[in-house]
């Protein structure tokens, strides 16, 4: 049975872009680690061990320990749970909301489009990180407030991408054909135009998840995102910043985890773009 299934899976993978296969593998593993961190973590991530303070990578502690004797590998592993959540929850609401607004604005045009243009201008005038930090400092630090801050700003980028695509699609014959067929505007927008316009937003979503991991880590580092002792990559890097010279492993391994996950998202984004482009 498995002997039949596995070759067919491999065969269907062969047609996919390499970047999608590699990136997808990284992400699937990351998600798996994020769901079952205890399977991979040799120790309790928050357990102190005063016999092993700041000890370097060894067989007992492959990534060393920090200044409280906590196992860095276990903390990095458990941080997958938090950071993969950040990547998904901070982006999924902006993706859905931004896509919906963008589709409606792009289709209707007129005053709605003008107003929307001003909102976009207002948002992109500020650097993304600065705006998010400002919102978080008003709402107070913490993961939920971080999601809110990212959502308030992030939907604009999806909306802008989709609005531009819909504006092109709505002039094509099949949109006219839909109207000639007596379909409602809502049906034409969401059933006909959106599936033809969604590709760039999907690709951007992948990039955005990578950016959000970096943002989550940045805010964690600054003390505005996940709060210690929660294991989160940005928090872990901040933990190690005072020991950079003597115990580099505390900061470097969570940093590598960020790079690897970011790479996974970027590769999937690229691969997805390539795949969907060739399908057209």
């Amino acid at each position: 049975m498995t002997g039949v299934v596995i070759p067919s899976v491999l065969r269907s993978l062969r047609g996919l872009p390499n970047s999608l296969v590699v990136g997808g593998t990284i992400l699937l593993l990351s998600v798996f680690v994020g769901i079952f961190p205890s399977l991979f973590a040799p120790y309790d991530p928050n357990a102190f061990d005063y016999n092993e303070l700041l000890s370097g990578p060894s067989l007992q502690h492959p990534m060393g320990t920090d200044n409280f004797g906590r196992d860095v590998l276990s903390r990095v592993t458990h941080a997958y749970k938090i950071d993969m959540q950040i990547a998904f929850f901070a982006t999924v609401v902006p993706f859905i909301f931004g896509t919906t607004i963008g589709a409606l604005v792009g289709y209707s045009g007129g005053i709605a489009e003008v107003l929307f243009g001003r909102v976009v201008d207002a948002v992109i005038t500020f650097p993304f990180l600065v705006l998010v930090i400002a919102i978080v400092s008003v709402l107070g630090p913490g993961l939920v407030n971080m999601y809110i801050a990212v959502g308030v700003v992030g939907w604009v980028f999806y909306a802008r991408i989709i609005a531009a695509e819909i504006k092109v699609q709505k002039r094509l014959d099949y949109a006219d054909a839909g109207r000639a067929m007596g379909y409602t505007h809502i049906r034409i927008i969401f059933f006909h135009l959106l599936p033809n316009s969604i590709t760039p937003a999907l690709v951007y979503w992948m990039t955005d998840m990578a950016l959000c991991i970096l943002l989550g880590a940045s805010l964690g580092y600054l003390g505005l995102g996940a709060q210690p002792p929660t294991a989160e990559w940005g928090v872990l890097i901040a933990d190690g910043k005072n020991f950079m010279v003597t115990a580099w492993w505390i900061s470097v391994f969570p940093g590598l985890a960020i790079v690897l996950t970011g790479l996974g998202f970027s590769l999937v984004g690229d691969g997805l773009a390539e795949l969907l482009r060739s399908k057209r």
Partner: protein
Amino acid sequence: MNVSDLVLEVRNLTTTFGGGRLTAVNDVSFSVMAGEVLGLVGESGSGKSVTLRSIMQLLPASSAISGQVFWQGDDLMEMSNSELRVVRGGQISMIFQEPTTALNPVLSVATQIEENLKVHTRLDRAGRAARARDLMDLVGIPDAKLRLKEYPHQFSGGMRQRVMIAIALASDPALLLADEPTTALDVTIQDQILNLILDLRDELSMSVVLVTHDLGVVAATCDRVAVMYAGRIVETGTVQQVFAEPNHAYTRGLLGSVPHAGTERTMLLSIEGKPPGLSEIPLGCAFNPRCEFSTARCGVDRPELEDIGPGRQVACFNRDAVAASGSPIG
């Protein structure tokens, strides 16, 4: 002809763009009888496609449409959006020139046919699937069951136009508006599609308005013809009348410019010059700068469309001279 046979009546339809500066369709009136195929002929830019799109109100917001379009006694121009949606696709359907772009590339053919049924009929899921298979048979696509699952890019040009027709006919419309349905197709496929439209007209007893620039298509398919030039109708009549005795110099020119197989070789007539742009329509008769029959009056006054027989109208001051010179294909 009985008045009750009238299905569509267009009165004084005028469509302008750019805040009224450019008039694409100017005071156009015509009617369509039950079961009839009306040809709307003219060069590119004569306003024939805009006329169709005005009837369906498919023009961009920068346009303004005035006049009346009576459909079964009601004026389409006065209808609310929801009333209009019932007529569009349900009672009047439209097919487009380019079947490649008029079908949604990401939805399967079955989805696209069944969508029309979902919107316009009360059929359940099984009923819609069965009707979709029947429609594929009706428009002559073999292997309906298999091909319904496919996507538009898996069909050839002619087959795509058949799919488009199947979607348009899904809920038994009484009128089909066809906007150059064969222009993008090979000549042999053209013939098949036109025959299909004619067969379906007989089978489903619907009327057809066929927009085309191809007089060969008109001769082969239409009952009546309306010739358009620079946004106006310049001559109407049955195809036999108009082809045998053109009364407008433009119609005569068009007929003379078509090659005919099986007759002795003669020089093709060509109409000098090109059709005027929307912003530079000449004073008087719009055709007068290109017209070999034109007189001083043609450059000053605009000839009105006048009845010269039952169902036969022409807008030309010198129509006797044109008629006397005979048909170039007679």
